[in-house]
């Protein structure tokens, strides 16, 4: 009887009920979107350095080194010698070393000079095959494409590209002397790698040669075949250790190395530093979200209280029929909890739908990839407790209003 009464009463007040439900839903959307977007950004950042124990570059700021090596933002101020890289690559503690040569671009996408270790690294951290199509470069004038680059520029295996010197979209110096052939397209990783092109270290060296010298090269030289193409410096390198316990030890010996000044950073620590610099953004977003939620709570509260006032006759009638106050308060609690639950469920469903759509758009337009990261434990807890709390509150107000 109670449920029947609650349902029929809600249906009869469907307009106010819908207003309440939408207010709860909107505040849930506001809070959830802020939370999921922020957490999504964080986890996308974290994923970009997954599997990298140390990033090594010429001495600079920790965050600068992190940004230009892992996020393709900014540029190194100095380079490291290839000798340093080779020495650490051969160190028995190192499982994998990925070299990075930076500074060139193609139609606004950055070009990374690297070697096969990069693709091994991608495969190890994503858990799936590095290449969606084709294979890694084997020759100097071959290039592989990040997922987004291939999609945005509509490149296919076998296409010929010109790489430009410098990072601008319309670079003045285009390395027109030699074209690069696409041999592989990477699977999507959800990291900045998706927006890069990769060539061999020799390839980067080659495009900086004067055209006359380039002309002397064979049509398609193998990588490492020509000692003249071996670069003598690089921007940075990633290190993955065979034994993580040694991380600090290796970091210290790089930082204190007497051969060449170098800096090794723990990417996770640098990201944490970056976030702590940006924590005001999180605070501001959460503040705005909470404000929206607060406004909705006040709105829902005033709607419910107005409804309650209008229903005093109904409750007095129920009392004359022999309903106890407990019955009426429970009725109020059930109705309120139903409204809040429906509102929250609608809010969560809409947020998931909205973010799926928005994330899809973001992915298509900017190659941004965020996982839909919802803290289901918290959310589940909120969906269970908030209706209960609001129901109890309204029942309390009802009991107070029904006192003689």
């Amino acid at each position: 009887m109670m449920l029947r009464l609650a349902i029929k009463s809600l249906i009869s007040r469907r307009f106010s009920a819908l207003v309440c439900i939408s207010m709860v839903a909107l505040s849930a959307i506001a809070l959830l979107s802020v939370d999921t977007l922020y957490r999504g950004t964080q986890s996308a950042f974290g994923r970009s350095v997954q599997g990298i124990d140390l990033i090594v570059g010429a001495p600079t700021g920790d965050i600068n080194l992190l940004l230009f090596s892992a996020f393709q933002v900014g540029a190194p101020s100095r380079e490291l010698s290839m000798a340093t890289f080779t020495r650490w690559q051969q160190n028995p503690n190192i499982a994998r070393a990925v070299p990075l040569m930076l500074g060139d671009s193609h139609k606004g996408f950055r070009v990374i000079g690297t070697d096969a270790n990069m693709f091994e690294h991608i495969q190890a951290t994503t858990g799936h095959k590095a290449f969606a199509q084709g294979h890694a470069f084997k020759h100097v004038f071959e290039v592989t494409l990040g997922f987004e680059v291939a999609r945005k520029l509509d490149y296919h295996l076998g296409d010929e590209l010109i790489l430009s010197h410098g990072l601008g979209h319309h670079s003045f110096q285009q390395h027109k002397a030699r074209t690069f052939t696409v041999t592989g397209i990477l699977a999507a990783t959800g990291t900045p790698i998706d927006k890069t092109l990769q060539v061999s270290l020799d390839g980067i060296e080659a495009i900086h040669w004067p055209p006359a010298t380039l002309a002397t090269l064979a049509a398609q030289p193998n990588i490492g075949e020509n000692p003249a193409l071996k670069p003598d410096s690089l921007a940075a390198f990633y290190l993955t250790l065979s034994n993580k316990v040694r991380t600090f030890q290796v970091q210290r010996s790089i930082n204190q190395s007497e051969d060449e000044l170098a800096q090794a950073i723990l990417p996770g620590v640098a990201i944490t530093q970056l976030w702590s610099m940006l924590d005001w953004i999180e605070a501001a977003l959460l503040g705005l979200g909470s404000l929206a939620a607060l406004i909705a709570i006040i709105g829902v509260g005033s709607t419910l209280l107005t409804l309650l006032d209008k229903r005093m006759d109904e409750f007095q009638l129920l009392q004359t029929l022999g309903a106890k106050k407990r019955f009426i308060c429970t009725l109020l609690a059930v109705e309120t909890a139903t409204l809040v639950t429906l509102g929250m469920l609608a809010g969560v469903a809409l947020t998931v739908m909205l973010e799926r759509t928005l994330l899809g758009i973001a992915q298509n337009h900017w190659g941004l990839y965020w996982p839909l990261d919802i803290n289901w434990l918290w959310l589940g807890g909120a969906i269970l407790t908030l209706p209960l709390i609001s129901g109890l509150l309204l029942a309390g107000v009802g009991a107070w209003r029904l006192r003689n």
Partner: protein
Amino acid sequence: MLNEPALNISDIEYGHKHGPRWRLPSWHIAAGQTIFMQAPSGTGKSTLLNVLAGLLPVSSGELTVLQEPLHLRRSAQTAQWRARQLGIIFQNLNLLDYLSCLDNILLATHFAKNREPRLADKARELMSRLNLPQQLLHKKACELSVGQRQRVAIARALINNPRLILADEPTSALDNDNSQDFLALLFELVRERGCTLILASHDQGLGSAFDQHISLHELSQPL
């Protein structure tokens, strides 16, 4: 049981917490009587009926309604008793608009924990006794005319076989013909069941058929 008094009042004081208060020295009603209580509006008529229904506590004196010593009870304790023993009819706002007539009638049986079999049939029977077409049972209360609603209120008041009916201006929302019909039907059903009836109204013209007339200002004095 019929010999027991339906109502026994000695020297009670009553009133809403922040409103006017009254004193009622003495009032006795034998079971099965029909009482017309005449009172102009605003003289505490509804307040007294609320007291008799156990909805408002008395602050002193003794009040026994159908052998229930209400002066010893808090209003929360009288809910079950009220549901089982009383039938209450108001001027309007008798029915929940969003429930069907049948649900409105059965709501009273729910609170009375009335476990009689075939309550819906009983409701149907009462409806036909009250000249209400059966198809109204499944209509929402808000779709009925005022006259029909008041008759559904009689059915609702009688469904639990109460021993006392309290009616507060039940006809003042009705036109003359409707109110004569209403009273005739109410009397017929009340007499048949041997219920006690207390009907309060400002309209002296209604009183002709009752066993006893009483004027509220003779009964109780404001404090």
